[in-house]
């Protein structure tokens, strides 16, 4: 899929991915790839700054996990504000998809 088409939707995708539960950056990238059957194979470099931006905006929070073995990882989770924002993004997307779908379905001809 053309990455240009995703502009403006990246935040929605990230918030929706983290709605399933906290995850670290690389797991978020993989989840997006898997849930979209590889259609959304985004350049990794766009994901981490976007996660940071959402964190600065208060929609995500991040904490370091300290496993007994293995590397420390920064784990991201939705904040209550992020959950509200996701609801708004979802409603906006559904309205948008309905509106565009009405044209693409070609059900109603143009008035004469």
């Amino acid at each position, binding site marked *: 899929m053309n990455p240009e088409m995703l502009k403006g939707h990246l935040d929605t995708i990230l918030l929706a991915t983290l709605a399933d539960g906290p995850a*670290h*950056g*690389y797991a978020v990238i993989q989840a997006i790839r898997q849930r979209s059957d590889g259609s959304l194979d985004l*350049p*990794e*470099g*766009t994901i*981490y*700054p*976007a996660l*940071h*931006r959402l964190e*600065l*905006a208060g929609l995500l929070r991040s904490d370091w996990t300290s496993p007994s073995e293995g*590397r420390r*990882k*920064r784990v991201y989770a939705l904040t209550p504000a992020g959950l509200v924002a996701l609801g708004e993004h979802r409603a906006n997307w559904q309205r948008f998809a309905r509106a565009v779908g009405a044209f693409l379905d070609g059900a109603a001809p143009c008035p004469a």
Partner: protein
Amino acid sequence: MSGLSSGLIDHYLADLQRRLRFDHRLAARARADVEEYLAEALDGADTRAPGPQAALARFGSAADMARLYAEAALPERLRDTLRWLVCLVVATFLFMRLRTMAMGLADGGSAWLALADGAGFGLGALLCGLAWRVGAGPAAQAGRLILWAFVALAASAAANLLRAPLRLAADASAADLALLLASGALQLGLLIFGAVQLQRMGRHLRLLA
């Protein structure tokens, strides 16, 4: 990992940090994110694991990454700078009032300095208000307003500080001198801190230009 790969990664990380050196916290964050990504991406458990060169290529150039991180952090930078500017407006007003009341600056003295003092403060406060309004809009515009607000407030502070010694030259008391020196030093400190903040904001905006 081979020496060549390690050198490639070190060069990438150093380049990224150099580009973001105006904000040490942001630079450290970007570096930590890239290191975490590379550690995961190059992990042998991942069957899609690319080599370091391919992993870095998928991540994007250091210049692109620095730009993306700078974009992400810009609203926070503008909010911080605006908060500091509001503090500067309040401090300038309080020191101006304090010196005017305690030293009788309202009576006599240089008319030009009095004009620069009052007009500079009024203009600075006005521009600060405008910058606050456009804060969420175009960053370059907000940056310019913040810069001019700072210049106006600095002119006001300088004029007020010059008025005091001229007024006190004839009959300065120890208390007046102490007030002048203490408030002047505090105001100067605030202005220097502000100039540093402005310089960082300028470098941040230039990276995105």
